């Protein structure tokens, strides 16, 4: 009986084969080929010409690449900090027993997360447009301003707007994850602490927060990987331009622009790998930082 099952083990290869075949064709090959192209000069016609690390040298001196990185980091940073804190507060509130209508609040806060990002980008663009935007009309009817403000021409405002869309889309998602984490904390621990005379804030900072640490690490790391890839929202918000003055041009938008509107496939691939290296560095840094902090916290 046992030997019979052993002999069946090679069937496993058949079960995993389809996945790996598809993965090699549509997952691995594109990445390897992109790396090859990043060492080449290629406009889509004829054959790619190998030029060594010239694309990477160009990347290191490319002002627009750095600017797009700054835009991405700025937009991500401004959205992620409130995203991870506001959602934590709301998760703790919604986890309390006395709140009524929990499931409705949960649903309303989470809903923007499943709406198409492209639709949200265009919607916000319409609301904040200059002469016909409903935001300007609202401010004017309330008497805050006399003439419509040209929001789309303000670099920092537009960056904040992208951050706002991201916050709007993701705080509900973070909240759901925190709630799942809170539900994993046994009530016994919390009740024991309360019986010992700990106040609610003490329980929160000394027990709940440290126990949520793995979930926070998970959220920070995934938000870095996702945040460095912002594309849909700024693209549709600015009709693909990254205006004003390239201030909402994220690195992935830049990559798209270089490769698919200027047809510099080689340089576009180099931008992709440059971004990838930065994502890896940031993930490692955040992982180490979060781990170290949790160690020092537990030693206290």
């Amino acid at each position, binding site marked *: 009986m046992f030997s019979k099952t052993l002999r*069946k083990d090679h069937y496993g290869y058949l079960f995993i084969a389809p*996945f790996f075949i598809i993965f090699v064709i549509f997952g691995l090959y594109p990445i390897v*080929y992109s790396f090859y192209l990043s060492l080449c000069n290629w406009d889509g016609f004829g054959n790619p010409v190998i030029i060594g690390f010239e694309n990477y040298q160009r990347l290191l001196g490319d002002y627009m690449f750095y600017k797009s990185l700054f835009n991405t980091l700025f937009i991500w940073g401004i959205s992620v900090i409130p995203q991870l804190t506001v959602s934590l507060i709301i998760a703790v509130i919604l986890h309390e027993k006395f709140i009524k209508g929990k499931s409705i609040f949960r649903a309303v806060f989470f809903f923007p997360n499943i709406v198409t990002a492209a639709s949200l980008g*265009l919607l916000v663009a319409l609301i904040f447009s200059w002469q*016909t935007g409903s935001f300007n009309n609202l401010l004017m009817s309330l008497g805050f301003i006399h003439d419509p403000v040209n929001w789309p021409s303000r670099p920092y405002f537009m960056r904040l707007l992208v951050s706002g869309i991201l916050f709007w889309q993701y705080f509900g998602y973070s909240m759901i994850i925190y709630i799942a*984490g809170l539900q994993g904390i046994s009530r016994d621990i919390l009740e024991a602490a309360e019986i010992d005379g700990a106040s609610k804030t003490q329980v929160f900072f000394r027990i709940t927060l440290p126990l949520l640490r793995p979930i926070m690490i998970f959220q920070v790391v995934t938000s870095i990987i996702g945040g460095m890839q912002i594309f849909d929202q700024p693209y549709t918000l600015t009709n693909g331009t990254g205006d004003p003055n390239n201030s909402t041009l994220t690195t992935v938008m830049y990559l798209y622009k270089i490769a698919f509107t200027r047809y510099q496939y080689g340089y576009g691939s180099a931008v992709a790998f440059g971004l990838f290296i930065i994502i890896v560095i940031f993930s490692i840094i955040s992982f180490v930082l979060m781990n170290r902090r949790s160690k020092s916290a537990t030693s206290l």
Partner: protein
Amino acid sequence: MANNTSVTPLTEKTLTPRSRVKWSHVIIYVLLIVLAIICVVPFYIMIIYGTHTNAEIASKFIFLPGRSLVENYQSMMENVNIWRGFMNSLIISCCSTALTLYFGALNAYGFAKFNFKGNKILFWFVLATMMVPQQLGLVGTFRIMYLLHLLDTYASLILPAAANAFAVFFVKQFIDGTIPNEIIESARVDGAGEFKTFNRIILPMLVPALAALGIFSFIGSWNNFMGPLVLLFSNEKYPLPLLVQLLQGYYGTNYGVQYLGVALSVLPIIIVFAIFSKRIIGSVAIGAVKG
């Protein structure tokens, strides 16, 4: 005081903290409601503004629905067939989800129940691919689709869905936790082939995991913007997110039409969410805890 004591003997103890807490309850409810309003208002504006003419939208802030819904709809349909986009989205998302689920489950089963050489290493490899951002291979994806003559086809967006690493991870966890080896062995004793065992016995047992996973993968595929932007060229094949972007180009100055288009692209999501919100939110929570 007389009122209080008349309720139950317990109230005297609980009353003081309760009345003190109440103010904080009010503040908390106000906060929650304000945040909820902020979340919902843009969607409200989207629906209301879609029923107004350009002139009305430009002149003042509007709260109530207007009368130009049909007019806006007709001028939108002249250039952008939103229902066609809806069908395209549906075809692409359904096929992608089916592939993700079936091949994800097949692969997960292979890793979970067959102790072949290199099992662990290959599984770690699959996990590692989850960390790699999609954009890394964007140019290469374009190239391979060109080589396989798949550019501007639905297949270019559907086929890669068969290799979804998260699906493998998710289903394998479920198999490890719920499916005992005895079931497979008894099927073998009965003489069932390995694939028959999988299709007839294992797959039905995986339905709870596949339902949660299916929700993820459908939403992801439905909202995918960059894939079709790079791989599709003909307007009549565009899924909804690309049609929304197309609206911007065709109707740069006709705001009512753009609002309506956005509204029509979001409405199916609102309807589906209204029905399945508990399941959707539940599957997000499961996915996060496992991840």
